Each structure stands twice: as structure tokens, then as C-alpha cells.
């Protein structure tokens, strides 16, 4: 009788252990899925738009505005978390300016817009006018903020 009860107890423990493990796994998955909402895509788009508004006037860009100080004035970013690079390419002038932590290398190897576990990169190309000639303005926005978003 005692042996039979012992077997029952062992079965109880075994069963609860198995169910407990499955439920614990489900809890961890649900928690990790819902714990952080990644808003870096929206943030990057907003920064990119603000930089464009700041350095261009209705599509006309003054090359003098492609400057680190000006970019900083436009966005007021936290340099440790966000990186911005603006590159103007035209027949007349080529100019580039960056602010923030150097994420270019990480973003450079990726395609247009890929969510990386570490850094979110947004690369956008705008067709603009510089001194009545067509030009392209490439904006790269890299956002770290991993702790709060991933």
C-alpha cells in the first residue's frame, strides 16, 4: 500500500513538473512578446523628416546647411543614442555631415531599412534642387535605444 502511494506521489510530482514547465515557457514567451514596443521606426522617420524640413526649403537645399552644428540645431538629439548623416550629391557640390555616435558602419552593411537587434537604421534618398540643378540628399538615421525598445 505504501509503495503504491509512493508511486502516486511520484506521478503527481512528475505531472506537475511537466505542466509547470509548459506553462512557465508560455509565460516567458508571452512576456517577451509583449514587454517592449519598438517605436524606433516611427522615431527615425520623424527625425528624418525634421532634418529634411530643416535643411531644405520646398526641395531647394543650400549646401551650407549640410553642417554638423546645423544638424544638431535641427534635432536636439541625444548623441549617445542617435546618429544622423546627411550627404548631398550633385554635379556642383558634394557635401556630407554627421552627428551622434558612429553607427554608419553597422547601418552601411544593411539594406534600405532593416530592424537590427542592436541598432535601427533608416536610409532615405530625396531628390532635391541645388542652385537650379538636380541633386540627391541621402539621410541615414541610426537609433540605438535597445534597452527601451527590444
Amino acid at each position, binding site marked *: 500500500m505504501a509503495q503504491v502511494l509512493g508511486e502516486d506521489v511520484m506521478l503527481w510530482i512528475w505531472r506537475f513538473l511537466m505542466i509547470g514547465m509548459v506553462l512557465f515557457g508560455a509565460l516567458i514567451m508571452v512576456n517577451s512578446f509583449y514587454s517592449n514596443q519598438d*517605436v524606433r521606426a516611427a*522615431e527615425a522617420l*520623424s527625425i528624418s523628416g525634421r532634418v529634411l524640413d530643416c535643411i531644405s526649403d520646398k526641395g531647394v537645399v543650400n549646401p551650407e546647411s549640410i553642417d554638423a552644428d546645423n544638424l544638431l540645431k535641427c534635432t536636439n538629439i541625444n548623441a549617445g543614442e542617435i546618429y544622423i548623416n546627411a550627404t548631398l550629391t550633385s554635379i556642383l557640390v558634394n557635401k556630407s555631415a554627421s552627428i551622434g555616435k558612429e553607427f554608419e558602419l553597422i547601418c552601411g552593411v544593411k539594406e534600405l531599412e532593416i530592424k537590427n537587434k542592436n541598432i535601427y537604421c533608416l536610409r532615405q534618398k530625396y531628390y532635391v534642387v541645388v542652385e537650379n540643378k538636380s541633386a540627391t540628399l541621402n539621410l541615414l538615421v541610426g537609433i540605438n535605444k535597445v534597452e527601451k525598445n527590444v
Partner: protein
Amino acid sequence: MINGKRGEEQLLSWLIQLFIIALFLILVLSFVKTAASGKLVEEQLSAKQIALLLDNAIPNTTLVINSNSIISIENNKVKVQAVKSATPYEYEFYSSYAVIPEKIKEGVYKLEIK
């Protein structure tokens, strides 16, 4: 007689096990429901949404926010603290405009962007 008693014990044992398993399942399902409804990340969502609104806002904009949490702005950070929570959730925004928060009444906040 002995077999009958053993059967009763087994039935009782099974019933208790079923009850405990059902209890576990109910607890887990209620947690999943709470998580899926967004209640666990309410503070986080509010802070991030307000930060994005402030990032995109132009001067002379007024935002009126209905929230049961306490909302404050400090050093370019939006802080949202639920009533039951011990610490607020913070999220940084980059807008260079001045943001003046004001509590209009319980659960209603006004943010003025100057």
C-alpha cells in the same frame, strides 16, 4: 471493500489534480489576456506615444491627453507613472521646443509646445 476504498482514493486524487491543473491554466490564461490587452505595458505605451507626438509637434501646439497615470516632463524625458506603480516609465524625446505640462483635472493633462 479494499478495492472500493482504493478506487475512492484514486478518484479523489484525480479530482484534486484536475482542480490544480485547471487553476494553473486559468492563472496563465488570465495573465496572457492581461498581457495581450496591453495593460502590462500601459505606462510604456503612453510614454512612447507622447514622446513621438512631442517629436512631431510644431510650436504653438496643444496636446490634451486623457490618462489615469501621472504624466510629467523633465529634461526632455516623458515620465508616465501608473497609480499602482512604484517608479515611472521614462522615454526620451528630442524636440528642442519647450514643453509645458499642466494637469487640467483628474486624468486630463495638457501639454503646450512653445
